[in-house]
């Protein structure tokens, strides 16, 4: 990361203050809906998250990845939520019969305070997941993602930001609702809270009846070369069939690419329905086109391919019970060199109250 002149840092602080001032102004002018909760409905702090264990056989290397991703949710009053997510994961690999070597990593994905100002606006401050596309914010948890391998373009949209964000969702008619997130992040060079100085926004529109969501993202770096990044996302769950279609496109100075994924749950198959309704087939196609600049490989969990690449993926998920999923997948990397990647493992989602949870 390049050094930033002191004057630039000062200007960024001014911008952040302006932004924060405007957010406070926005919050103060909107009416707050009255509280509707009874004691039995009052939110309780929760420790939730997911844990998993995956094995990947990738181009002659066997990798074992145990993961634990706890999420802490602390509601305060009727309008506040403090939430945090940490990520602990190991990467132990062995090639050609050698002993396994590796280490355990830890990340702080987010630590944020959310203030639900009104029906249209939630203000977030702290460290938050960068709202770019849908994968980073919504699909990343291992119990949610349909394929354990993240998309090739994921490093373009991944990461966290440190600053303030305004977001919300509201109906624009009886058949559609709009969602938005706009944010400012300040430069942080601390290893745990690492973030760039960026400004960005994401908007999406969801059509209720056909269950289609389309949206776009934009991010502007306010440092270094002041690059822009753009993204498009699409999701469709056709109501009559248990099919989930999703797609994303992202473009940055490092390159561009897309992925299209379909996941089909066999719940409509009548033969062996007890088994079939827990089974899901997944297919994904993705391509990446290398750009003018190379993203420095800083030893992080994810990195972009070093050249033009395409990769078809196929997967099979079996939902053993609520929150417990076994999965297996195959991918064929087609780039400068070609190889197969096999992954299999198990993911578990947990949730426990940190206080009296109320009866049903």
């Amino acid at each position, binding site marked *: 990361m390049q050094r930033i002149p002191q004057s630039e840092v000062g200007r960024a602080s001014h*911008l952040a203050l*302006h*932004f924060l001032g*405007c957010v406070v*102004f*926005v919050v103060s*002018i909107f*009416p707050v*809906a*009255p509280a*509707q*909760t009874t004691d*039995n*409905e*009052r*939110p*309780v702090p*929760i420790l*939730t998250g997911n844990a998993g264990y995956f094995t990947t056989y990738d181009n002659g290397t066997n990798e074992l990845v145990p993961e634990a991703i706890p999420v802490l*949710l602390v*509601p305060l009053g009727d309008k506040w*939520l403090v*939430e945090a997510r940490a990520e602990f994961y190991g990467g132990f690999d062995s090639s050609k019969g050698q002993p396994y070597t590796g280490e355990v990593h830890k990340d702080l994905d987010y630590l944020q305070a*959310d203030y*639900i100002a*009104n*029906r*249209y606006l*939630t203000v977030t401050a702290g460290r938050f997941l960068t709202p770019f596309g849908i994968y980073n*914010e*919504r*699909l990343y948890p291992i119990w*949610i993602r349909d394929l354990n391998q993240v998309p090739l373009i994921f490093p373009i949209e991944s990461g966290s930001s440190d600053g303030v964000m*305004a*977001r*919300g*969702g*509201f*109906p*624009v008619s009886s058949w559609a*609702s709009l*969602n938005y997130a*706009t944010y*400012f992040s300040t430069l942080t060079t601390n290893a745990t809270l690492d973030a760039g100085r960026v400004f960005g*926004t994401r908007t999406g529109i969801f059509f209720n009846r056909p*269950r289609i*969501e389309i949206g776009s993202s934009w991010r502007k770096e*306010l440092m270094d070369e002041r690059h822009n990044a753009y993204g498009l996302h699409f*999701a469709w*769950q056709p109501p009559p069939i248990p099919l*989930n279609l999703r797609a994303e496109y992202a473009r940055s100075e490092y390159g561009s690419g897309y992925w299209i994924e379909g996941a089909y749950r066999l719940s409509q198959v009548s033969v062996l329905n007890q088994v079939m309704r827990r089974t899901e087939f997944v297919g994904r196609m993705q391509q990446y086109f290398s750009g003018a600049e190379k993203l420095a490989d800083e030893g992080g969990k994810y990195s972009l391919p070093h050249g033009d690449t395409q990769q078809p993926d196929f997967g099979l998920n079996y*939902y053993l019970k*609520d*929150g417990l999923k076994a999965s297996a997948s195959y991918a064929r990397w087609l780039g400068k060199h070609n190889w197969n990647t096999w992954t299999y493992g198990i993911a578990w989602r947990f*949730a426990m*109250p940190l206080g009296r*949870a*109320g*009866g*049903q």
Partner: protein
Amino acid sequence: MKRQFAILAGILILVTALWAAGPKNNEGSASTVIVSNTHDSAEMRLEGEKRFRANCGRCHAAPHKFQPRMMATIVRHMRVRATITDEDMHLVLYYMTQ
């Protein structure tokens, strides 16, 4: 300086849009309106289930129901994370706690 103006202008446009889309009278939350207008709780549950499938099902398989106070926290978290609307949040909470 130009950038500051651009950001401020953007925020002001957002404020204006939100103001224009805001409630036209002193109504309560969406759920209050729905509860008062919908006497049939079965209908509300049905609507809640529909909203649950439309919003939550976009990303993950339907989880089992949690205890009401846990559900209230989870729904608040999802309101922020998935930017679901206030009305949807209340209906989903109703459905998931019945």
